[in-house]
C-alpha cells in the first residue's frame, strides 16, 4: 500500500509539473506573439487604421457644416459679381475683367494637347526644366479658356511639376507636360519618370511626399 501511495503522489506531482510547464510555455508563446505584433507592423497598422477611422468620422461631421455655412453667402457674392460683369460686358466699354474658363471634356483636352507644342521643347538643365514645361502648358491652356492647374510634387530629394485638368467626363486628370502623357499620382508612390517620358532627377526612387494642386 505504501508503494502505491508513493506512485500516486509521484504521478500527481508529475502532472502538476507538466501542467505548469504547459501553462508557462503557452504564456511565453502568447507574450512573444503579442510583443512581436506590438513592435512590428501590426501595431502600426492598427494605430494608422484607428487614426484614419477617427479622422474620417471627424471630417464627415464638420465638412457639411462648413460647406453649408459658406455656400449661401458665397452664392450671393457670386451672383452680384456675375450680374455686375454681365452689365459691363453689355456696354460699349472694353471689358477686361471677365476671364472665361471652362473645364474641358477629355476629348477636348486631348485635342488641346495634340495642338500644343510645349511637349516638343527640349529640356535644358538649369534653363528650361520641368517647372517651365508645367507653367507653359498651364498658361497655354488658360489662354485658350481651358481651366488648368499647376501641380507641385515633392519628395525628400526632388521636386517636380505637372499639370492637372478637371475634365467634365473623367474627373481629375494629371498630365506630364514633357510628353503629354497622362499620369497617376499618389503620395507614397514613386513617380513613373521613364514611363511618362520625363527627365528624372538623380534620386528618382524617392516616393512622392506631397502633391500640391494650384488652380
Amino acid at each position: 500500500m505504501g508503494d502505491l501511495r508513493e506512485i500516486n503522489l509521484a504521478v500527481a506531482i508529475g502532472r502538476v509539473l507538466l501542467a505548469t510547464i504547459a501553462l508557462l510555455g503557452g504564456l511565453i508563446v502568447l507574450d512573444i506573439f503579442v510583443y512581436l505584433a506590438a513592435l512590428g507592423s501590426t501595431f502600426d497598422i492598427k494605430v494608422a487604421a484607428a487614426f484614419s477611422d477617427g479622422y474620417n468620422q471627424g471630417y464627415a461631421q464638420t465638412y457639411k457644416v462648413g460647406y453649408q455655412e459658406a455656400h449661401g453667402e458665397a452664392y450671393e457674392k457670386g451672383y452680384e459679381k456675375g450680374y455686375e460683369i454681365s452689365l459691363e460686358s453689355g456696354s460699349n466699354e472694353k471689358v477686361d475683367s471677365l476671364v472665361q474658363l471652362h473645364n474641358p471634356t477629355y476629348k477636348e483636352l486631348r485635342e488641346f494637347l495634340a495642338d500644343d507644342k510645349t511637349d516638343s521643347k527640349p529640356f535644358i538643365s538649369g534653363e528650361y526644366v520641368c517647372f517651365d514645361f508645367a507653367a507653359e502648358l498651364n498658361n497655354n491652356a488658360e489662354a485658350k479658356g481651358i481651366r488648368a492647374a499647376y501641380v507641385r510634387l515633392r519628395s525628400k530629394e526632388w521636386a517636380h511639376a505637372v499639370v492637372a485638368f478637371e475634365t467634365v467626363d473623367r474627373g481629375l486628370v494629371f498630365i506630364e507636360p514633357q510628353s503629354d502623357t497622362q499620369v497617376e499620382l499618389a503620395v507614397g508612390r514613386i513617380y513613373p519618370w521613364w514611363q511618362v517620358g520625363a527627365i528624372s532627377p538623380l534620386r528618382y526612387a524617392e516616393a512622392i511626399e506631397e502633391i500640391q494642386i494650384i488652380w
Partner: protein
Amino acid sequence: MALIGVGVGVSTHIYTNLTNGVATARESGFEEGYAQGYEDGFKEGTEAGYQEGSKVGYTQEKGVDSSSDNLEAYYFLYNPTYDEVQKLLVEAGAGSAKEIHDYAESNGIRAAYVRCPIAREAPKGMVYLYQLVAFETVDRGLVIIEPWSQREVKVEVGESYSRLNGFPASPYDDAVTKMTIVW
C-alpha cells in the same frame, strides 16, 4: 506561480499599451479630421456657391438659361481692381502663396502663383525660391504680393530681392534667377 504572474502581467501591460495607442490615435485623428473637414467644407462651399451664383447672375441679365449645356463646365473668374486686391488680402490674412491664391480663386478673383528661384546655393537638383502671388488688376496692371507680409513687391531677374524691396539685407545671395508666373 511567480513566473505565471510575470507572464500575465507582461501580457496585460502590452495589451494595455496597444489599446491606449489605438485610442489615442483615434482621438487625435478625430480632432484633425474635425478641423480639416470644416476647413475643406468651407473652402469648397465658398467656391461652389460663388460659381453657382455668378453663373446665374451673369446669365440672367442676358436671358440665357444658366443650366444650358454650354454653361455646364463654366468657371467664373475676374481680374480685380487694386482695391479689391487689398480687400482680399485683409480677408484672407497672412498665409502661404498657395493659401492666398486659393482664397482668391474661391472668391472668383483670378490670381497667379509666382515662382522665383534665387541664386543661393542649394543641394544638387534643388533650388531655393520665393513663392509669391500676382493679380492682373484692371486699374494698375500686374501686382505682385509677398503673401506672408502681404506687401506689394517688385521682382527683377538678376536683382537682389531684399535690396529691390527695401527688406533687411539677406545673409545669402537672394538675386532672382528667373520668374515664372503661373495663371
